[in-house]
């Protein structure tokens, strides 16, 4: 351990003995009978299917799970009686103490970058944890500078606005805030799931540097093994809690586990290195549908911005566009992939194309084949006219839920249009939602939510489908299903426009890649037919894109 950390970091061991946790109001435990020993300074990647209790374990280690009635309602004594309270069994210790006993011994980073930032100034945010641990003032600032340096944010002023940071920077800031507490145990709960490829590497490398320096213990939960494989020295695979089997399914060095459990991990949807899930390839374009190639939607000289005209007193000021002079065409049965660095306005462009945001300048026009009498400008269409023509799947599925039941959710669009309800059953089946028809959409797993959100939009039978980062944070199984399904749609003549960083996904869909230059360069995007051809794909984790110069 480097001397200037003054012994501040004491790598912590984790010991679980028959540990289990049942969340309040649930009948089954999230984690059951966990026996696990992690040595001080060890780096562990935690894998397992959804529902295996990975996040629950991290939250417990971070001491944020709340209090459980220490468990006697295990199987046998008709346990439902007190299912309203959370229930803890066995013991879970960090360096010999219960996690809640010593605040600041463990630091936790979660998935959503927006909620990892607490305060509005960079320096304050890093200091927050140290302040809460009553670290003396001078010492706090020493730690803040050191932590910012460690995560590579030292070039920014201390009063820099945290809202102006990118997703990757926000996660690195969160890491700095954790480091300033000098924790012996660092817990990362899918820290890079919401980030673009550049952000993923940024965060991973910062974590690596900090661990090398402090020697702290690491437990990270992630679907994408390739990202963390070289950084960890052990992989632990958990399985969903049950009364009979132990919680730990496999435990060993990365190479060992990946070799032994490869098939099982692939079946569980884990992104195993070197494995690209098999997705249906497109058949030769133009053979299966006569409409293929027909122009449906065109953008001419388009300038886009998410901001509405601003009110300055009584005056109205148009917003400054993030991109201008965009010219693009959407054709039936063809894929258009919008790529570019963060903040280049990819989503904004897609949503403008989708008739959801009015253009700042230029126009989006629908051809007669698409508009079918509804008028030329999609933004002016009524909602029920829009969904029958252009369907948009948002990045966050929950934003689009409008009912309290999966079946109602699917029937909603057709019902509003007055036809098309017969398609619902087919979609339920095709996207494996049949068993969930009565479930509340908000209670579904991430992959299920994604499939549902695609199904609901398709229930209205749009000719153009627009998707915003459809593969973000998805496991390999959902990914493959989605890619196959879209490739089928394309062959059937639907136009698919997707905003994505995922090169493998782009590769499956083929078609045209449309690259947007970084904001502020004032360059229009360029369409590059053929750039999305086979052979260029990397993986869900690709190198950061470079904008054309």
């Amino acid at each position: 351990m480097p001397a200037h950390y003054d012994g501040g970091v004491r790598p912590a061991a984790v010991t679980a003995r028959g540990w289990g946790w049942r969340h309040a109001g649930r009948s089954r435990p999230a984690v059951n009978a966990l026996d696990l020993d992690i040595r001080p300074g060890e780096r562990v990647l935690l894998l397992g299917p959804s529902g295996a209790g990975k996040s629950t374990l991290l939250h417990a280690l971070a001491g944020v799970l709340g209090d459980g009635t220490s468990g006697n309602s295990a199987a046998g004594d008709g346990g439902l009686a007190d299912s309203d309270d959370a229930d803890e069994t066995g013991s879970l210790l960090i360096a010999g103490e219960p996690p809640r006993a010593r605040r600041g011994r463990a630091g936790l980073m979660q998935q959503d970058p927006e909620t990892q930032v607490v305060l509005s100034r960079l320096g304050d945010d890093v200091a927050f944890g140290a302040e809460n641990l009553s670290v003396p003032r001078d010492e706090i600032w020493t730690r803040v500078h050191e932590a910012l340096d460690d995560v590579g944010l030292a070039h920014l002023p201390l009063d820099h606005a945290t809202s102006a940071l990118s997703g990757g920077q926000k996660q690195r800031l969160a890491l700095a805030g954790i480091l300033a507490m000098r924790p012996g145990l660092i817990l990362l709960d899918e820290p890079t799931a919401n980030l673009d490829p550049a952000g993923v590497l940024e965060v991973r490398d910062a974590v690596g540097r900090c661990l090398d320096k402090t020697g702290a213990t690491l437990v990270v939960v992630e679907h994408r093994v390739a990202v963390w494989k070289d950084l960890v020295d052990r992989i632990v695979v958990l399985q969903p809690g049950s009364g009979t089997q132990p919680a730990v399914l496999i435990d060993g060095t990365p190479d060992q586990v990946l070799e032994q459990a490869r098939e099982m991990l692939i079946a569980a949807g884990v992104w195993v290195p070197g494995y690209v899930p098999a997705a249906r390839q497109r058949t030769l374009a133009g053979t299966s549908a006569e409409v293929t190639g027909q122009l449906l939607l065109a953008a001419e000289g388009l300038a886009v911005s998410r901001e509405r005209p601003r009110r300055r007193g009584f005056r109205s000021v148009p917003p400054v566009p993030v991109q201008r002079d965009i010219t693009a065409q959407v054709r039936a049965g063809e894929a258009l992939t919008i790529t570019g660095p963060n903040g280049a306005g990819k989503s904004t462009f897609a949503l403008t194309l989708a008739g959801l945001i009015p253009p700042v300048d230029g126009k989006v026009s629908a051809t007669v084949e698409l508009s079918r009498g509804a008028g030329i400008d999609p933004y002016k269409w009524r909602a029920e006219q829009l969904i029958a023509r252009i369907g948009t799947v948002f990045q966050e599925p929950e934003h689009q839920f409008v009912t309290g039941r999966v079946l109602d959710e699917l029937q909603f669009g057709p019902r509003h249009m007055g036809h098309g309800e017969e398609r619902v059953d087919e979609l339920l089946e095709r996207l494996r939602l049949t068993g969930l028809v009565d479930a509340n959409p908000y209670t579904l797993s991430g992959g299920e939510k994604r499939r549902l959100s695609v199904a609901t939009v398709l229930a209205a039978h749009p000719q153009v489908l627009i998707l915003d980062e459809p593969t973000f944070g998805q496991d390999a199984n959902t990914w493959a299903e989605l890619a196959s399904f879209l490739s089928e749609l394309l062959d059937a003549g639907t136009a698919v426009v997707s905003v994505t960083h995922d090169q493998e996904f782009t590769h499956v869909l083929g078609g045209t890649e449309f690259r947007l230059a970084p904001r502020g360069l004032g360059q229009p995007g360029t369409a590059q037919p053929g750039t999305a051809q086979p052979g260029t794909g990397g993986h869900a984790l690709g190198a950061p894109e470079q904008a054309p110069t």
Partner: protein
Amino acid sequence: MRDALSLSGNQALLTRANPLAKFAAVFLITLVLALSIDWMSASVALACELLLFPLAGLTFTLLWQRGWPLIVAAAVGGWSTSILSPDSGKVLLDVGIWSMSEGSLQLGLGFLLRGLAIALPAVLLMSCTDPTDLADSLAQKGRLPHRFVLGTLAAMRLVGLMAEEWQTIGMARRARGVGSRGNPWQRLRATLGQSFGLLVQAIRRATRLAVTMEARGFGGATRTWARESTYSRLDIWVLLGGAVIAAGAVVAAVWAGTWNMVWLEGS
């Protein structure tokens, strides 16, 4: 929207004063103006406040951008007071049930000036006070519970996020076929649905933020502060300034004979 509350490069003198001192000064002025409806005390206070603009880094353009609802409200209040209050003195305007006399005009003018004079210090305070500094000051100097103050401060950051979220949810719902256009009933229903969506997201975000804060050790009985909130000599001047403006307004009104305590009026 997200940075509506930030000071964005304001270097003016009053940004360096302690927020609590500024609060106290504003309170003194507002208190005096709340006591009497007369045009003299209000115009003296208003004139002094306008002189303070440069010290707070405020310009008329900025004032109008941030405070126009208050200004419009004051104007409407003044106008309606002058036409609706009982007539006294010479009648200047008579249109049906509305009439304006010298007396009512004076009252209306007093109302307008007073509205402005009360609103302006708030805008002044906002424009030269950073929310973070305010929280520091309230918790360290004002002895408010730090859990409450910091919780509020962190939540305020979410308010800006929620404004963006509202827009996104509105678009996402249109993409599902929920029209936010149409007759008022349809719009109301669409707005209610959208509000529910926002509520769900707000609770999710708030829960995650709470976990983040707790995981960083927030919630203990004691904590240290990376930045000390201090009083300086400037704060004495701020307090004195507030007191002088307040006193000046009273003295001028009493001297001019316009001072009338609101609750002593009786008639």
